[in-house]
């Protein structure tokens, strides 16, 4: 519904749009030709919306690429050829895409229409990431311009600015978002759509597109001293860097510099304290407007730099102040001290207006009209709800079978067993009651991590990786292990989709049920792996003989683990069992009921299988029919045949 509005909305119309949706509209108002992405919270919605609308709006190409590096390369070459391209990823995705990005940043296409915008969405507080990472220091490494919006309306406008700057200067421009901007919804006033155009004639001159010593040192000179220099002039004169409350005064001679989401928090905190202070709001976060900053600093005795995570702007402001002999005291995170005491705001975690208000109280010694401390100390005994796998999730069965296999393996072999986890829903198997994680880093790292320990120890080392992550970046590590005959067990949990971020497709997904499925070719994972010559076993849930799937899975893991220990070679187990959320979009499964006459409350189902729909109630096992999705595994494992399937008569 909203997706149609993003395309059909009229000029001047105001919609209630997500920051990410406003980015899409901004790109459509810039005449975008190509959008490529790899899903990752909080950036995924941009790609999802583009995927839904792209056939209707005449964009040349939209794809969910195999990983961020490939996404950037596909879009990068389209840019070289004369397209307006955009690439989307989350912060850690930028690490994956960073290698080609350095070449892209320096190239200078000759085509008039060429423009490229890279959308990077950070996740402060790592709500859905393995690490907390501030992507802004990449701007200094890559030496490219960047814009940071603070609300959905700015998302739309800054996207248009970014395309325009990139087209004019022939340099990639980053749009940097954080969760509270990407996932905020607000009034967004629409502008005019610009139909995409792509010239028939184009120029792919090697001297501006080929990264080699022959051309690149000259291009790099041009990048820094010409294109970035022109970007600086733009930044100095840009209406994106503006001063709010320019004439406000306060007895502390205090000014504030901020950007992005933090700007909103500053306004809120000042309001709360009835404090008036001029604010320099930076929308153009690289290159920073040196002259504007100096002029601003000179008006005050002290300036407070408010930003989330790293002290990126503060460090720059400190350097600019020193260079220009400005005596103004600069307050913030005191980035050179690595000390919490000197820091008014924390490097770690998400910022909010309350934290900014407390910092301002510390600076000014003001007494607020309301005592926030009492609210802050409100802690109540609450219901703890840890994240759980969905009811019916294939990974719950794998966790159950693996736990049983491991117990037997440990006692039979006497070996220690270690687990290496990856990024996906199965990461939840890292925690109680499974605890299958000894080392875990980032996307695609599990298989290599297992090799590191297997080469220094005679323990059994098991890598657990999902299919989406395997395609994303697990393949090189697997080939490394196969080639070196490293004795590890690799479990590829093939649920058919990139489950965690909303079941987006990857090259192994069977998309023929879906809208654009006929345009894709599914890669057969089994045949692909057979081609490597590795030892491989495949077990498929959907083809199971009635009953005993968890036990067959347990036995397979046990047997192949022994093989790894005895034959000292790598073995792969592929477990094919589709994501229940996706499976249930096409099928209706029978929910399961407890036959209370047969249930003797042995607890096997609710204690060991750990399905969120299973519990104990009145000394019997109990299935919550609002949660049960009908996978039927509990029926298979019940030793008393006390579980049966039927239609859902509950609400």
């Amino acid at each position, binding site marked *: 519904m909203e997706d149609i509005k993003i395309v059909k909305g009229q000029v001047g119309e105001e919609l209630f749009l997500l920051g990410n949706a406003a980015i899409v509209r901004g790109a459509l108002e810039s005449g975008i030709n190509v959008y490529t992405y790899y899903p990752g919270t909080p950036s995924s919605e941009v790609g999802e919306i583009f995927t839904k609308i792209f056939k209707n709006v005449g964009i040349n190409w939209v794809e969910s690429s195999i990983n961020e590096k490939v996404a950037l390369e596909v879009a990068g070459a389209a840019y070289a050829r004369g397209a307006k391209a955009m690439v989307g990823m989350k912060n850690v995705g930028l690490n994956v895409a960073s290698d080609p990005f350095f070449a892209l940043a320096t190239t200078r296409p000759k085509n008039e229409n060429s423009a490229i915008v890279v959308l990077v969405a950070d996740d402060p507080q790592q709500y859905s990431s393995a690490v907390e990472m501030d992507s802004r220091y990449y701007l200094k490494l890559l030496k490219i311009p960047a814009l940071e919006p603070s609300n959905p*309306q700015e998302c739309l406008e800054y996207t248009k600015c970014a395309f325009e700057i990139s087209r004019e200067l022939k340099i990639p421009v980053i749009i940097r978002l954080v969760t509270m901007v990407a996932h905020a919804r*607000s009034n967004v006033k629409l502008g005019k759509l610009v139909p995409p155009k792509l010239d028939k004639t184009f120029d792919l001159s090697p001297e501006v597109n080929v990264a080699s010593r022959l051309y690149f040192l000259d291009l790099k000179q041009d990048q820094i001293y010409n294109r970035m220099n022109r970007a600086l002039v733009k930044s100095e004169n840009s209406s994106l860097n503006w001063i709010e409350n320019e004439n406000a005064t306060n007895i502390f001679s205090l000014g504030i510099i901020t950007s992005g989401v933090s700007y*909103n928090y500053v306004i809120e905190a000042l309001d*709360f304290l009835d404090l008036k202070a001029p604010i320099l709001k930076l929308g153009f976060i690289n290159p920073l407007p040196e002259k504007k900053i100096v002029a601003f600093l000179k008006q005050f005795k002290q300036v407070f730099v408010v930003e989330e995570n790293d002290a990126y702007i503060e460090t720059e402001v400190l350097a600019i102040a020193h260079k220009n002999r400005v005596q103004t005291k600069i307050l913030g995170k005191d980035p050179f001290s690595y000390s919490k005491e000197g820091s008014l705001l924390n490097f770690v975690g998400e910022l909010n207006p309350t934290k900014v208000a407390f910092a301002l109280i510390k600076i000014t010694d003001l007494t607020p009209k309301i*005592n926030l401390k009492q609210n802050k100390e409100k802690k109540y*005994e609450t219901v703890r*709800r840890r*994240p759980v796998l969905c009811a019916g999730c294939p990974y719950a069965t794998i966790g159950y079978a693996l736990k049983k296999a491991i117990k037997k393996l440990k006692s039979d072999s006497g070996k220690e067993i270690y687990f290496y986890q990856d990024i996906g829903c199965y990461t939840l198997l890292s925690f109680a009651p499974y605890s299958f994680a000894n080392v875990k880093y980032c996307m695609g790292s599990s298989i290599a991590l297992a090799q590191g320990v297997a080469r220094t120890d005679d323990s059994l080392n098991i890598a657990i990786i999902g299919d989406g992550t395997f395609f994303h970046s697990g393949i090189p590590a697997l080939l490394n292990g196969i080639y070196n005959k490293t004795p590890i067990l690799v479990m590829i949990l093939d649920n058919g989709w990139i489950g965690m971020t909303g079941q987006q497709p990857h090259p192994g997904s069977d998309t023929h049920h879906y809208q654009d499925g006929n345009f894709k070719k599914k890669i057969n994972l089994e045949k692909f792996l057979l081609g490597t010559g590795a030892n491989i076993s495949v077990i498929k849930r959907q083809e199971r003989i009635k009953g005993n799937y968890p036990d067959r899975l347990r036995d397979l893991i046990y047997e192949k683990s022994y093989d790894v220990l005895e034959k000292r070679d790598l073995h792969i187990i592929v477990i094919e069992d589709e994501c229940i959320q996706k499976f249930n979009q096409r099928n209706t499964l029978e929910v399961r009921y407890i036959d209370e006459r047969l249930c003797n409350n042995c607890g096997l189902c609710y204690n060991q299988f750990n399905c*969120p729909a299973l519990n104990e109630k009145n000394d019997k096992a109990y299935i*919550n029919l609002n949660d049960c999705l009908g996978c039927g595994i509990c029926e298979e494992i019940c030793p008393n045949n006390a579980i049966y399937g039927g239609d859902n008569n509950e609400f």
Partner: protein
Amino acid sequence: MKKYVQTMQYMEEIITNSNNYTIVITGLGGQGLIRFLQIIGNSLIQKGYKVISSEKHGLSQRGGKVTCFLRFGEKITAPVPIIGSADMIIAAEKACIFDVLEFTKRDRSSKLIIADYEKESQNNDYPSEEYFIKVLNENSDHINFVPVMPIVAQYKNLKIINTIILGYILRFLPLSEEEIKKSINRYFKKDLIVLNQKALEEGIKLK
């Protein structure tokens, strides 16, 4: 109609005094809180308000807790309010209210809207009724329990809780039934529109 005019006056007062009206909404992943935000937000925008909403959720789709904010007034404000500043706090699952009480105003004027839906906890740590009442009374003089479960049982659908609450809180918002219904038509799939309009009416009828 008279009541509606009163609501509008009350709302104008609040918005003039503090620039905006802040609602905190809490519940569990999968309850449809985001749709709830979309429907209210869209209706308010049609009415000329500036609205901003945001969501905080880790792995909410896996049964975790979700906290959302919806703020409206004459200008766009921060997506997250300062603590101690909520005009209204809604809990779509009863015990979730405990997580957001830091947003209640010190003068005890925040309206607490609590559905009687209780989702059992796997740790058997669901708070007792006495504790619940005691804590709520510590925080507000305006506690509103919304009996959604009888309506849920009647329509045999757990997903309408938010729409019932929406109907209930309409008495406090500067929006009419028709305006909300327009947004319901816009944001729900065709086969769910009638059900949700009925749920909305049930919520409006509640005392």
